[in-house]
């Protein structure tokens, strides 16, 4: 009986230890991807056991199997369409009643099921005496006690799962009673299925009827494709609804849920002994401090600030290494490849592009590491609890704050890890609103631009200006979120009701696996897009090259220069001429009429085009455009002095430009990440469009308003 391939789906509530179980089973041999068409993460792994080839698929953590959230729909769809050989439902033994609610729904569906009674140690610590054999007898499915974090019981669990898969090849739905009214309606509905029910394999007619009574949108859609059925269903359903409303003042969903809990309650009382009264757990005591109304917010601020400091401090050194490495590679290419097109492509297109992808890796790694700590300890749920009331006003969620701070809510963040941090949000609309607005925060790449312009025009009030820009970015991001939630992301927020899981010490192994798989996903998926756009940006700034006669004339001038300084100056002027001749330069000139009302000239426009590569490129491109060579974003004093003296520049224009840089199109790395996180090009393109239009409108109002007030 060897050699059989068995697919095992791993299911369970969030916080039930399902992820630990998956890690304990598959170790580091995991694959990560997405379920087709949605952004829900799919993880799977292969192991072999007693000659069987096991594929373990980690379903998204859910509390139920309804059609309300993406996670639930994905989990249910997977079960129905892929028909795994067996489902392991990981339940939290310390939290058994609610966890069995999902188990009962698997039993209703009829999939071959094994229950992993996880976190037995925690349950025992709380004085719960659970009899697994009795539980198994009463539920009618195998039950295996486990402690996934310590790897206890995992072998037995897998053995039981394989045995169940080999023994039970058919789906066997549990026929639960939901009270006389619902049962009667189910019987009538099911009768209408005869003959048509084959199309529903492996689903039983009773399950489909049950879902119809529960008002399940997805099943209704399926049934409506069969008009013969749909015609019969609707009147019956309506009759039951009216009847229950009249007799019990409740709806079928409520009644059905109550009967499920009734069934579970009966089993629970027989299989579990509570040996002592409920008391304040350690976790509750910690919460007395961490979610205290006065101290809680202060600790929260400290934690968020600490994370921010840690992420950027810890990644500084590896980022430096990577910069060094790519600088060195650039140098090697500089020496090895003959002057010309290929050299420019390799250095400015490819090496800078790959460097751009990898340069963000340390940041992303450390950010996901800290998020994993917050998630695994349970503190992230408290962040949402403490901040929800404030952020809800803007159509966001308590957990949005994390993404906003990482993106630059404290000046110097980065929207790339910030957008990815929005993964912790389960409400899809609040999540999108967060993703679309965090690029407005003051990321580290905008700071050199601010430093340049503040140095030139607001030198006396440096600190105040930076602080004002921080406040403006928070205000704008929140207002933008509010407007998005009123318009393109209109609609009810998902219910907030959320578990506050007990505080736990995370395991290092779990943290490392989390961090690594998310980082790898970024490299793999965003990487190709980023490299592609990087080459495109390089082409924009380099082509078309100067016509041969002009290029020759410049070369002659360079040759004729007598001193080193003179030659450099001529080369800078040549650089300016080349930039002006390029597509980007032409775009800058063409846009002149559009941006004139903001006070921007063509040089500024070219710099802004270049800024799409990364905002600090605005500085180096301005340098080239002002014939000063490529100015190092770290050292802008020279350019700053030049701008201060340049006719056409004044504090008002500088301020309008700073606002524009803050708001306009996210850099293309962020755009690539938005594409990844939203699963398509629609939202990243929308983000580019709406931010650029907003930037234009706001800079226009500020510049023209300022001129009216005589500030210009």
């Amino acid at each position: 009986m060897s050699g059989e391939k068995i697919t095992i789906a791993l299911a369970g509530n969030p916080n039930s230890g399902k992820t630990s179980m998956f890690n304990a089973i598959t170790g580091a041999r995991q694959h990560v991807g997405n379920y087709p068409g949605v952004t829900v993460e799919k993880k799977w792994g292969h192991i072999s056991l007693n000659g069987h080839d096991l594929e373990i698929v980690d379903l998204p953590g859910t509390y139920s199997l309804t059609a309300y959230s993406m996670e639930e729909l994905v989990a249910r769809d997977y079960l129905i369409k892929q028909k795994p050989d067996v489902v392991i439902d990981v339940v939290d033994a310390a939290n058994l009643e609610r966890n069995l609610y999902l188990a009962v729904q698997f039993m209703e569906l009829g999939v071959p099921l094994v229950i992993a009674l996880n976190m037995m140690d925690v349950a025992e610590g709380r004085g719960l005496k659970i009899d697994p054999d009795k539980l198994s007898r009463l539920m009618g499915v195998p039950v295996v006690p486990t402690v996934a974090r310590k790897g206890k019981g995992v072998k037995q669990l897998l053995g039981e799962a394989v045995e169940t898969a080999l023994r039970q090849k058919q789906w066997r739905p549990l026929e639960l009673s939901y009270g006389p009214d619902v049962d009667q309606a189910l019987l009538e509905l099911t009768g209408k299925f005869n003959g048509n029910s084959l199309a529903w394999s492996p689903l039983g007619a009773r399950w489909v009827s049950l879902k119809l009574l529960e008002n399940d949108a997805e099943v209704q859609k399926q049934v409506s494709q069969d008009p013969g059925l749909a015609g019969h269903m609707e009147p019956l359903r309506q009759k039951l609804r009216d009847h229950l409303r009249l007799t019990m003042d409740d709806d079928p969903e409520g009644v059905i849920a109550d009967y499920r809990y009734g069934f579970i309650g009966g089993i629970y009382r027989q299989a579990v002994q509570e040996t002592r009264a409920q008391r304040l757990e350690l976790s509750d005591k910690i919460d007395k401090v961490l979610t205290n109304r006065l101290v809680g917010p202060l600790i929260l601020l400290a934690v968020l600030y600490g994370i921010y400091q840690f992420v950027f401090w810890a990644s500084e050194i590896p980022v430096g290494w990577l910069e060094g490495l790519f600088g060195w590679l650039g140098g090697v290419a500089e020496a090895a490849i003959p002057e010309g097109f290929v050299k420019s492509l390799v250095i400015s297109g490819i090496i800078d592009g790959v460097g751009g992808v990898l340069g963000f890796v340390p940041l992303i790694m450390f950010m996901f590491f800290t998020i994993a700590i917050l998630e695994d300890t349970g503190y992230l749920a408290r962040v949402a609890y403490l901040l929800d009331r404030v952020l809800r006003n803007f159509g966001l969620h308590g957990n949005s704050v994390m993404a906003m701070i990482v993106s630059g809510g404290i000046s110097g963040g980065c929207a790339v890890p910030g957008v990815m941090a929005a993964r912790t949000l389960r409400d899809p609309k609040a999540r999108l609103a967060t993703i679309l607005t965090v690029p407005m925060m003051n990321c580290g790449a905008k700071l050199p631009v601010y430093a340049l312009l503040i140095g030139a025009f607001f030198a006396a009030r440096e600190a105040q200006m930076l602080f004002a820009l921080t406040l403006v970015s928070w205000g704008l991001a929140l207002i933008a979120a509010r407007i998005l939630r009123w318009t393109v992301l209109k609609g009810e927020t998902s219910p907030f009701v959320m578990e506050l899981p007990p505080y736990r010490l995370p395991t290092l192994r779990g943290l490392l696996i989390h961090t690594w798989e998310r980082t790898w996903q970024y490299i793999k998926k965003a990487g190709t897009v980023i490299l592609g756009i990087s080459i495109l940006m390089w082409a924009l700034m380099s082509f078309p090259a100067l016509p041969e006669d002009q290029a020759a004339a410049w070369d002659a001038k360079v040759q004729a220069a007598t001193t080193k300084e003179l030659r450099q100056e001529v080369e800078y002027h040549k650089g300016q001429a080349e930039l002006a001749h390029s597509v980007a330069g032409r775009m800058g000139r063409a846009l002149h009429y559009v941006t004139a009302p903001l006070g921007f000239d063509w040089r500024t426009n070219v710099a802004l085009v270049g800024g799409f590569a990364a905002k600090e490129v605005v500085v180096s491109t301005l340098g080239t455009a002002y014939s000063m060579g490529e100015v190092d974003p770290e050292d802008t004093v020279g350019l700053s002095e030049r701008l201060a003296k340049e006719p056409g520049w004044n504090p008002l224009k500088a301020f309008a430009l700073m606002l524009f840089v803050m708001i306009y199109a996210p850099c293309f790395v962020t755009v690539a990440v938005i594409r990844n996180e939203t699963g398509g090009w629609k939202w990243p393109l929308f983000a580019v469009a709406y931010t650029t239009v907003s930037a234009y409108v706001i800079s226009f109002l500020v510049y023209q308003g300022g001129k009216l007030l005589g500030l210009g």
Partner: protein
Amino acid sequence: MENFETLRMLRVGQQAVIKKITVGGEMGRRIRDMGIVPGTVFTVMGRAPLKDPVEIKLKGYNLTLRNNEADHILVQTEEG
């Protein structure tokens, strides 16, 4: 409903029994999924700094929900 209170009206530290959920659809479903069903005893553990959301403890675990969700949960306090 007779003279039940809603969960929103409870003070921190108060214990009560859930009597009825008065909302259907997604919100009703979520509330029930999380184990908030008639007959369950719970304690109000705390409120966030701006008094919303509220935290409760039931069947050995902790949940938080917004006040506008708590409005749909009718409860009976021990003394009431």
